[in-house]
């Protein structure tokens, strides 16, 4: 897709990409945009990393209209973050999505930065603080791993699980889980393989990465 539009100006490049997308879509289904204009009814809320290598709709081979999306640094959900909380509220209460997915990934810059305490500037230090706390909490487990790639992948997993714990406390999620069976899922995207994997927590009644309300 991308490389076929070699234009000197990078903005012309994506505007040309947009025209190609529009023509392709209209050719396949002349009513495609008229249908989209009527509204959205996504089944899934995706909370993922801002990383450019994981375009959720492309990676899941989905169509526009299928996945509602929030993406931030290291797919982190903090209890006091109004940005993510507003997305969750809108998706769960107003759009009534049935599933919430938190997707971490291998080779995550945020997870990698959380392996150490390098100064990334105050803003990023503050944002990543809870992820760095995870590293401290799981020190021994992490030290037992063969290399930094494995440690970063483990941090990414722990971070997904932590975000899911925070999401369970969101009032809209609690209500929807009890009233209509909303489920939460932890995923890891393997950048080197292009593949999604379901995370399952050990020792719990979860099957297939699904979280069941108590």
């Amino acid at each position, binding site marked *: 897709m991308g490389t076929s539009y070699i234009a000197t100006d990078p903005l012309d490049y994506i505007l040309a990409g947009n025209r190609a*997308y529009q023509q392709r879509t209209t050719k396949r289904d002349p009513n495609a945009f008229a249908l989209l204009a009527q509204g959205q009814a996504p089944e*899934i809320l995706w909370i993922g990393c801002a990383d*450019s290598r994981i375009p959720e709709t492309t990676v899941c081979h989905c169509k526009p209209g299928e996945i509602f999306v929030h993406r*931030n640094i290291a797919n982190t959900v903090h209890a006091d973050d109004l940005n993510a909380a507003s997305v969750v509220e809108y998706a769960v209460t107003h759009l009534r999505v049935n599933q919430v997915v938190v997707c971490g990934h291998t080779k995550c810059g945020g997870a990698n930065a959380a392996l150490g305490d390098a100064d990334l*500037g105050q*803003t990023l230090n503050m944002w990543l603080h809870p992820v760095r706390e995870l590293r401290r909490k799981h020190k021994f487990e992490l030290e037992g791993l063969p290399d930094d790639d494995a440690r970063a992948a483990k941090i990414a997993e722990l971070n997904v699980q932590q975000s899911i714990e925070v999401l369970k406390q969101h009032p809209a999620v609690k209500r929807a889980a009890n009233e209509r069976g909303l489920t939460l899922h932890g995923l890891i995207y393997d950048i080197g393989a292009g593949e999604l994997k379901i995370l399952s927590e050990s020792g719990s009644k979860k099957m297939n990465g699904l979280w069941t309300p108590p």
Partner: protein
Amino acid sequence: MTGKEEPKEVRKYLQQSHDRIFENNKKWAEEMQKKNPAFFKDLSAGQSPEYLWIGCSDSRIPAEAITGLDPGEMFIHRNIANLVCNVDLNVMAVVNYAVRHLKVKHIVVCGHYGCGGVKAAMTPKDMGLLNPWLRNIRDVYRLHQAELDKITDEAKKYDRLVELNVYEQCRNIIKTAAVQQCWAENEYPVVHGWVFGFADGLLKDLKFDHEGQLKEIQKIYDLTKDA
């Protein structure tokens, strides 16, 4: 779904739509691998996107798909109604990482006509947890009240508010120290305001004047000098 299925049926249905994502993902990974056997290996080496995209969470606007970009080309933040709020650590962390660490050349704020977030903010109603977030859009309305009040056609007024919201968020990005300092040093990133329309599937460039706005903004919000 009608909302009246037995619990067991609901479970089965959820499991199916969940499984579909995984089947689709496998298909996609195989296709990409066939097209370019080194595709995932190259991505594994790192990212160096040229663009930061700040767009709406709306499911109908997957940024990469509508711009025809491949994985690895665009860093993405998406929230309700593509807002850039100055006290929001979430978006500020994204802007900081994209500008200071990834050195993106362009920042695109992309709104869209028919935005549910903007619509909700035009509704005189208590939206609970969403109030503080949507309040930022009501503030955009207040800033441009003279112009908006003159538009009598409701649909046109709504479209214009979508555009003005993008415009104000572009200004908010320019107010950050990260953007001002990087610009002073390198003459990038450049901030752009766009709106996506479902009527034609095309992106409309609002022609945001980055340099002019920067000058204007720095009269009050000048954060160029390091502490």
